[in-house]
């Protein structure tokens, strides 16, 4: 490995933003046919480093060498022309354009000056097949799921025929089946001689595909090791600078289970059927399933966002129909969306205004905004209780990291003391330390007599946090597993290969 000149070499990169040192003397290289993983907590400098590489930022110090030649990009286009393709975490697709249009955006094939649609359609189809997306090239991007969009984004990067491919948490939005296919694709790219920089929080992935792993912390490079030399525990320790012995909380005491808080019989709507479910105070119920299994739809149905159109619901012993989020909240249900940016926060409002949003939604309109339970001290207590880390509570919430935003939204629900909290992908895109904090929070909420429904695509989280696991398949409950079930058991049910009777 050392004999060949690396395809990419970054030397002593430094970058500051108005006094904050985002990157400090970071050096790493990547060879042809190598997958070099980069990990670190949110804010460790991973994305800044990738933006320097992609020509979005210019480094204050250091240099970038491509095949041994120094380069200086003044614009992302120059980086793309030099063969660097970056798949960003935030999707950059145009929702109103077709998949093929997006894949060839800026590289449109032409014939005598006109767009060559046939070449575009065929090229797009080939690329989509390669990334394993079952998507029509003519489909509008907005009609696709987040997971499908992610695959299109990757196909778009491949259209460039880049020698260096950067993937920033590409599997964050994918379920295990799609993620597995993506990892195979990374393997193929490596065999074809691409140099791949791979940013991820998922330990299992890093072990599966990385050749080398570099850990960043607070803008500095902590260590670069061969993947074989590191265990997940070692990686976590390098990332957070300490052990996370109690990453998952201790399970709940089955003897302390309270009464049934919510019960559904024969629930169904356009995507769900035959939902029968009892949730008890004091338990965390995990809902697992593949993308499209209806697990997200179940959460939205219980919260009245896409309500059940059939069946019966009992809330706290009363028969009730939940027809909108507002009626759900009035009945004592809280909901944490999987799309924090679009559905969770009001980005320009302060932390206090965000944490008080639900209390105010049910207050008299003409009351002062800080009266009674909405007082500033109450808001601050709530924010402190969920352990939000911020410069000040008057700060706009958009300036916070994802994990802290998530805590504010959780705090919003706690202010109303709900009986049931529905968490949709509660830790997506959140760093390891914040994840652990959110798991602990969920546990302590359950221990204090709330029911928690956690819907997640992250299997280790489902297994590590839930008191029992319900697996969904094609809009139905495929089976239920006790605490301590294995990932294999969950996958069997999720794939529909395990019989319902086999479940405990």
């Amino acid at each position, binding site marked *: 490995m050392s004999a060949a000149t690396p395809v990419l070499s970054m030397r002593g990169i430094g970058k500051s933003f*108005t*006094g904050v040192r985002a990157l400090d003397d970071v050096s790493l290289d990547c060879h042809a046919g190598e997958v070099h993983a980069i990990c670190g907590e949110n804010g460790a400098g991973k994305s800044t480093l990738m933006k320097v590489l992609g020509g979005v930022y210019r480094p204050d110090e250091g240099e970038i060498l491509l095949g041994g030649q120094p380069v200086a990009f003044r614009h992302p286009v120059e980086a793309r022309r030099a063969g660097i393709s970056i798949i960003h975490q935030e999707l950059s697709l145009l929702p109103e354009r077709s998949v093929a249009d997006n894949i060839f955006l800026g590289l449109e094939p032409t014939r005598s000056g006109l767009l060559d649609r046939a070449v575009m359609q065929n090229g797009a189809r080939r690329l989509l097949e390669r990334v394993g997306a079952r998507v029509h090239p003519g489909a509008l991007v907005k009609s696709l799921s987040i997971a499908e969009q992610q695959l299109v984004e990757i196909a778009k990067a491949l259209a460039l025929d880049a020698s260096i491919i950067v993937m920033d948490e590409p599997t964050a939005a994918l379920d295990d089946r799609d993620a597995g296919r993506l990892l195979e694709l990374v393997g193929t790219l490596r065999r074809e001689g691409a140099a791949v920089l791979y940013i991820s929080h998922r330990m299992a992935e890093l072990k599966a595909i990385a050749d080398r792993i570099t850990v960043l912390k607070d803008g500095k490079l902590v260590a670069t090791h061969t993947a074989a030399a590191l265990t997940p525990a070692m990686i976590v320790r390098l990332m957070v600078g300490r052990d996370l012995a109690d990453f998952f909380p201790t399970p709940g005491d089955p003897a302390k289970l309270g009464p049934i808080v919510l019960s559904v019989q024969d629930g169904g709507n356009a995507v769900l059927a035959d939902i029968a479910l009892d949730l008890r105070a004091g338990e965390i119920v995990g809902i697992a399933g593949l993308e499209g299994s209806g697990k997200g739809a179940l959460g939205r149905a219980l*919260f009245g*966002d896409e309500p059940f159109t059939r069946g019966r619901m009992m809330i706290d012993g009363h028969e009730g129909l939940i027809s909108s*989020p*507002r009626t759900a*909240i*009035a009945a004592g249900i809280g*909901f944490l*969306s999987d799309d924090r940016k*679009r*559905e*969770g*926060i*009001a*980005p*320009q*409002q302060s932390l206090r*205004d965000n944490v*008080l*949003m*639900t209390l*105010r*939604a*049910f*207050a*008299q*309109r*003409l*009351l*002062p*905004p800080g009266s009674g339970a*909405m007082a500033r001290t109450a808001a601050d207590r709530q924010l402190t209780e969920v352990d939000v880390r911020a410069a000040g509570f008057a700060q*706009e919430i958009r300036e916070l990291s994802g994990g802290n935003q998530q805590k504010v939204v959780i705090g*919003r629900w706690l202010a109303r003391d709900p009986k049931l909290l529905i968490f949709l992908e509660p830790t997506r895109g959140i760093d390891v330390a914040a994840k652990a904090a959110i798991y602990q929070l969920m546990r302590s909420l359950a221990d204090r007599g709330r029911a928690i429904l956690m819907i997640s695509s992250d299997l280790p989280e489902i297994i590590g946090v839930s008191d029992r696991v319900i697996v969904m398949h094609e809009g139905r409950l495929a089976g239920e597993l006790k605490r301590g079930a294995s990932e294999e058991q969950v996958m069997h049910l999720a794939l529909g290969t395990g019989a319902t009777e086999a479940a405990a």
Partner: protein
Amino acid sequence: MSATAAHTAPSAALRFVRGINVGVAIFLVLYGTIAVLQPSYFEVEGFLNFLRRAAPLIILACGQLFVIAGGGFDLSMGSLVTLTVLGGSMLAGGNPENTWWTIGVLYLIGLGVGLVNGLVVTLLKVPSIIATLGMLLSLNGAALMWSGGAPRGYLPENFRALGRLVYREVPVTGIMPLSVIILIGFVALAAWLLHATVFGRQVLAVGDNPRAAELAGVPVGATRVLVFVISALSAVTAGILLGGFAGVSTAVGQGLELQAIAACVIGGAQLLGGRASVTGAVAGSLSLFALFTLLNLMGLPQPLRETVQGLILIAAVASSAWRMRRA
């Protein structure tokens, strides 16, 4: 050590610059220039007369501000002003006894217009810019039909007094126009509603992220309907004042909705919602009105005034975008 100091200094300076409302700064410069050309503006009486004439625009901007804060636009304000003035003269027919019930009817019309705007936006999911553009055309048509194409009747004296009565020999200020008293009351009401009530926070939340607000339980539809009602009621109020000193004409409200939007933006309100201040909207309207006054004093023709208004709007939006990026 020195590095920290070097970093805190510019950020404090930057925070100070961001803290000043652009609208206030622009207004002070413009008003100063006017007063240099026309020294009477330096006197209390001159200023109060200036306020009296600016009152309708300020009231319109305060109403528009609620719609903007909630993430929409109300383009129907100007035509509702026209309808108020024409309708007022038709209904009252010059008889002072008719004034009070006429004003009641005008507010009912305003309430109806606001409800229709709000319901079309919420229930039919029509973007507010289109919904209220439709309302603009309908109201203009209705005003012309009702008045038969030309202004008829006239406003009774006690109706017109609301816009042009000036109390003399008032302590401290010397004079006090009735419309300035109405203006102060209205602005105080708007400031209270937007900044000191739960409703104001709901409006800002809905404007900032309607989806998040809905999932947090905020009654998004009702909030949207209410902001359009507030906007329409403020248009009727502005129309009543304007009828007092501008007289009855079919063009009295023309273009006022755009001036109101421009005033809000100059005052730092963010188009598409989530950020708004009544102080800003007042300062923005005063700036805009001072600009018109200045261009008038300089003897510039109407078309040039409109061109300048457009340029100001672009500059205000660009500067607020620039400040957002710095933030």
